């Protein structure tokens, strides 16, 4: 191929710090994820539930007769006594299933491919520390997760407020925003750390998907079996997904069982331990990579 010996031009400009560069890691990762059609399909599936809730709110507030029946089952306000019916909480928990499926397929694209095809070396050779790299990758997971949970939930909140007779709804129920953000943050931190660690370890889509699914399904089965055998509710803490829901629900002030009130701090501790183990593993892996690869 012929070389175009064009003149080389100098560039003068300001270079920003490495934390800013971490955002480039996020953007590049999301670009890689959304270049795969399967993620658009998963995102569309995730949005189906959102459209259902969107329609429910419309019907519940705008259609006389039908609306009352809907609102008997769903509540979109902050009522300490009606949190079991809280529409936002229900939406977040249902979207959690979509997140699980999406993350199972995303692990290899988000981080596994970097280890398989030496993308890690590319990032780390640009003056980024492992922390910057991990922060960028975690942000990508958080954006993916937030786009199917937190963002639609907040859209529903805005929608409900717009259909009510006055605008006080948003102010009076501002705790909903905090609750949704809190639940989303718990999911993003825990699932993000576990997914990144699994992705760095297993690298390929199929092993990641199998291990990811087993991790949540088997831990649920084992913890329930152990709780039944011993009668000790603390065994429930082994169920990672339940721990996430338990802590997430605490943001809404809702506990499904009485024992959950006592278990919530333990669940938070268990999740923190899992996150620490995953981050420690990722750190060791990246430092090892930087030295040897």
């Amino acid at each position, binding site marked *: 191929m012929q070389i175009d010996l064009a003149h080389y031009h100098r560039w003068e400009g300001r270079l920003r710090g490495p934390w800013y560069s971490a955002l480039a890691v996020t953007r590049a990762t999301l670009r890689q994820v959304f270049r795969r059609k399967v993620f658009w399909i998963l995102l569309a599936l995730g949005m189906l539930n959102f459209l259902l809730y969107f329609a429910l709110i419309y019907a519940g507030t705008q259609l006389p007769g039908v609306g009352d029946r809907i609102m008997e089952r769903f509540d979109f306000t902050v009522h300490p006594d009606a949190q079991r019916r809280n529409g936002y909480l229900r939406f977040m928990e249902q979207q959690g299933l979509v997140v699980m499926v999406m993350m199972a397929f995303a692990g290899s694209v988000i981080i596994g491919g970097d280890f398989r095809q030496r993308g890690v070396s590319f990032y780390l050779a640009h003056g980024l520390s492992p922390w910057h790299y991990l922060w960028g990758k975690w942000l990508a997971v958080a954006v993916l997760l937030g786009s199917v949970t937190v963002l639609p939930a907040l859209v529903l909140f805005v929608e409900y407020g717009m259909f009510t007779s006055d605008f006080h709804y948003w102010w009076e129920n501002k705790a909903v925003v905090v609750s949704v953000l809190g639940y989303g943050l718990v999911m993003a931190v825990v699932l993000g750390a576990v997914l990144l660690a699994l992705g760095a370890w297993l690298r390929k889509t199929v092993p990641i998907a199998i291990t990811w699914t087993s991790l949540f399904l088997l831990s649920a089965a084992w913890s329930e079996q152990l709780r039944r055998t011993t009668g000790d509710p603390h065994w429930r803490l082994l169920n990672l997904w339940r721990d996430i829901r338990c802590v997430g629900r605490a943001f809404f002030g809702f506990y499904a069982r009485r024992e959950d009130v006592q278990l919530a701090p333990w669940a938070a501790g268990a999740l923190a331990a899992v996150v620490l183990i995953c981050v420690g593993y990722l750190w060791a892996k990246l430092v090892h990579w930087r*030295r040897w690869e």
Partner: protein
Amino acid sequence: MCEAPVARLTEVTHRYGSTVALDCISLQLPRGTVGLVGNNGAGKSTLLKILLGMLRPSQGQVEVFGVQLHQAASTLRRRFGYMAEADAVLPLLQGVEYVALSGQLYGMSRRQSFRRAHEVLGYVGLGELRYRPVEQYSRGNLQRLKLAAALVHDPDVLLLDEPTNGLDPPGRDAMLRLLEDLIAQGQKSVVLCTHLLGDVQRLCEHVVILARGRVVYQGPLAPLLQLRTDQYLVRWQGSQEWLHHLRCQGVQITPGANGSQALLGLPSGWSTQRLFQVAQQHGAILHTLRPVEEDLQSVFLRLSEKANSDPKAEA
């Protein structure tokens, strides 16, 4: 403009567990073009990683542009553009996105990085392929893409790790011409780490030869390639008896293809005049006496061999 050397290493040692990768080396990488050569395991990659701040040496001081590396590592690293030997492919990204991402990782803004990516891709000859996914690039184009990614933020120094690795001869020549042009136009310092000594001979003014984690030579390339005064090619007419006498006096003799030619390695203190005397005494007439020209390959092999046989020797 500050004229401090690109890097100065003082008694730097780096260990991987019990393995010593760099053994108390002191060296200076001057501005200009420097070839970094050595066998596998000589410590070249470790040295590059230390300069890039990816590794902290176990002992010793590293100065980059006159500043201690550990004091301003993140700032100094941005003055380097690194082209890795291994292909770090980020699948599904287009060429222009790959180069722009490199710029953003160095700290450029998104808009500037894309503008500059288009510019450097045009410069390295990939202007027409810039929207192609990275995984579809051929070997030669991938090397150019990596060079563009290293150039995007206009660094002062380019660290090139095997830039012509895996290229066919025309591709290699094209890459070397590109680098020559870049050195001339961009006025950049280049550290070229390669096994292909011909590339070093073509591009570099200085050379650092590493063997087993030690520096066996550092300095300008030209004196290294000067004619040797201890090895001569001789052709003669007459008997071979004079060779026997030379051998008895400690001259190393490598006979040539025909019976009237040989390579002579003279012991220290010998002059060419003495050769003529011995030849004359034994009835041989010398009609060719030429000092041996050594290329970088032979110099490298000689120095490496010497370092391997005597680990404490340092040129």
